[in-house]
């Protein structure tokens, strides 16, 4: 079970694949910034812009009856008579009409309770024990956004510093290049998800980017370590040694990715819905990260 990746032969291919992925991400980010209703590089969720999210189940005997969201909204409009509670309200039914999920702009606790009571009157009875409600003020949202942003910058800086101290300049530069490549592509994928499926990113997305950064760098460091070690005991040429090192660490890197992906898949399949996109972002990051550690970063080290 020895692996033989022809890194030297495929250098151009690898670099073009990465370039295409990066360009696609860039396209998503640009499209999202200029051509969507939210005009942001990525579809910012409630954590960052404030708002009210409510999920609550209906109590039904047997199957829940089919209700159209429009008729419920119609009823609500009658009750509220053009109050701003109904601006940008989004209402959905999930789980065979059982689960009601609602998004509105920020409401006070009082207004939110009021909305639930009105819903109960329209399509009740509701199971209050199943309630999941989040109210985030716009002020806090802005703060969370800056917080996430600084967290990312600070930890990227710390990781860069660590790598620069740990390796010499060339290695550090390429390890960081691979890292930014991974983060950029995951960001791009979520830009596209925002455009196509209106997936929103919340503070957990920032956390997943940070975690991906740690993983990606770790993977690259392990391979670079191996390259350094083999270059010291140089038996073959420079390029061949790099290729050999990559093949020697191939099993380890893929195995690690698999053992990390398995728990993440379990969360995606069995875990709570609030962790779904978080786990997906992490999984994508780990896949892209392994690709960049095994193929991209070492290819960049190759001499022409």
């Amino acid at each position, binding site marked *: 079970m020895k692996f033989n990746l022809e890194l030297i032969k495929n250098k151009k291919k690898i670099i073009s694949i990465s370039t295409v992925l990066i360009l696609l991400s860039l396209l998503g980010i640009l499209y999202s910034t200029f051509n969507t209703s939210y005009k942001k590089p990525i579809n910012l969720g409630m954590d960052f812009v404030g708002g009210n999210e409510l999920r609550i189940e209906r109590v039904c005997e047997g199957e829940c009856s089919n209700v159209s969201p429009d008729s419920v909204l119609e009823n609500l409009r009658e009750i509220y008579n053009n109050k701003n509670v109904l601006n940008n309200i989004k209402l959905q039914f999930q789980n065979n009409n059982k689960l009601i999920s609602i998004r509105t702009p920020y409401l006070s606790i009082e207004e939110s309770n009021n909305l639930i009571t009105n819903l109960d009157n329209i399509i009740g009875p509701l199971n209050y024990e199943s309630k999941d*409600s989040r109210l985030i003020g716009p002020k806090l949202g802005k703060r969370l956004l800056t917080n996430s942003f600084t967290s990312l910058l600070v930890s990227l800086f*710390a990781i860069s510093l660590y790598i620069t101290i740990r390796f010499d300049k060339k290695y550090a530069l390429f390890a960081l290049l691979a890292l930014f490549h991974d983060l950029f592509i995951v960001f791009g994928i979520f830009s596209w998800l925002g455009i196509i499926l209106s997936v929103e990113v919340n503070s957990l997305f920032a956390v997943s980017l940070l975690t991906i*950064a*740690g993983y990606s760098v770790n993977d690259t460091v392990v391979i670079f370590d191996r390259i350094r070690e083999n270059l010291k005991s140089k038996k073959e040429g420079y390029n061949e040694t790099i290729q050999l090192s990559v093949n020697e660490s191939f099993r380890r890197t893929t195995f690690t990715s698999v053992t990390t992906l398995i*728990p993440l898949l*379990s969360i995606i399949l069995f875990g709570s819905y609030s962790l779904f996109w978080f786990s997906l972002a992490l999984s994508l990051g780990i896949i892209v990260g392994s690709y960049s550690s095994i193929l991209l970063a070492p290819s960049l080290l190759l001499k022409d």
Partner: protein
Amino acid sequence: MKRRQGWLFFIIFLLTLSVYLLINYPLQLGLDLQGGSQLTLQIIKEEGNVTRDELEAVNSVIDKRVNNLGVSESNLQTLGGDQLILELPGEQNPLVASRVLGKTALLEFRTQKEGTSTDLKTLQLQRLIIKELIEQYTLAEKSQNDNNLKVIQEDLKDIEQELNYSSTSNDLYGKLIEIKKYVDKEIINLFIKTDLSGKDLINAGRRQEQTNSNWEVLLTFSNSGGEKFSEITKSIAGTNQLLAIILDGESISEASVGSQFSSTGITGGSATISGNFSAEDARELEVQLKGGSLPLPIEIVETNTIGALLGSKNILKSLYAAISGLIFVGIFMIFNYRILGFVSVLSLVLYGFFNLALYSLIPVTLTLPGISGLILSIGMAVDANILIFERIREELYEGNTLTRSIDSGFQRANSSIVDGHITTLLSCFVLFLLGTNFVKGFAATLGIGVLISLFTSLNCSKTILRFFTTYQSLRQKNLYLPRNNFSN
């Protein structure tokens, strides 16, 4: 060999200790797992940063108010330099708490300026009309009575003319509120500040008025407060100047002091505010006054509520995810590494126990993001094992003896493992420092996991492996390498 045996006993001791800890000190579950509400309170300061003293002062006032509200098992903690987090477990309505906590509750006593009686009477009348209009507005809006709304608009214009003030709000309701605030301010301007305030209270209470169903709030002053009160009442007794009690910039009571008090003032150190309070209003005011006024205003910026049923569902889902993750990782490892894989499964089990035991010891409150941090760190812990096992395999392929391969495998993987752990720890550290409460849970469990995995993957795996290799039957090389490529 003796040293390894010592480790084996140490590991068994740690495992027993962990089990003991977990049985006696059950894990604390976060609100997303047990159901409840969480409020984030933001301290508002116009200029400069909130100082540590100010944060402490706000914290203690809020703490008193929460205690006086009688919510059970609530938990209040500070977050960052200017936020507080209040947790109310179970099915407790956050509405009441939010109403009581959100107000500054600044209580002032003021005496009326001389010769302003007519002005005050006009303003009091206007205030009454505005209150009436606001009530009518709510009714008219509910019944969608456009005619009534028009009448309200007309009346509002009249008052604006009388006041010589024009409102700037866009909608009718906003205008009504704006005018009301303006009138409140004008009323307060007719009164002079005294040195008696909410700080001079030692207690507050409430009772139902005898003549009707309204409630009144009773104030008990401290000794010096009582003296101040009698001085103040003495100074205006028998005149037509009134005493105003002002709460958060709104006068809630204006009363005259009878001439019988002109020699000594009102003594006894207590006062009553009767301002048409409902039972709820009176209770809220009582709680606020008991806790004292907030040195800085606060705003509730976040509220999360999770039903108990959803909480227990979340626990179950997380358990499924964690257990299935562990099982599949275990199968993968045993399939690829045979006995070595089995060793890593054993050290993973140890890893799980040590983690949970540390959570109950520190203590770490387990939340959904926290659990995902733990599940994710399983991958991290296995990664260290994979690095080591790959090295051991290579050594075995090169024809080294089992003992030697194991030794140098652990040795040579060391630096890569430490590197990887450091980069992840860096991220966790930043997350923990800068993250929100939600994010902190994730950073804490991932960070703890990474630290423990250093011990379990480097030390526990080695000890278990050494223990296995003392048995001759477990020393065959094909138990360590898949047979089909042994000849490689």
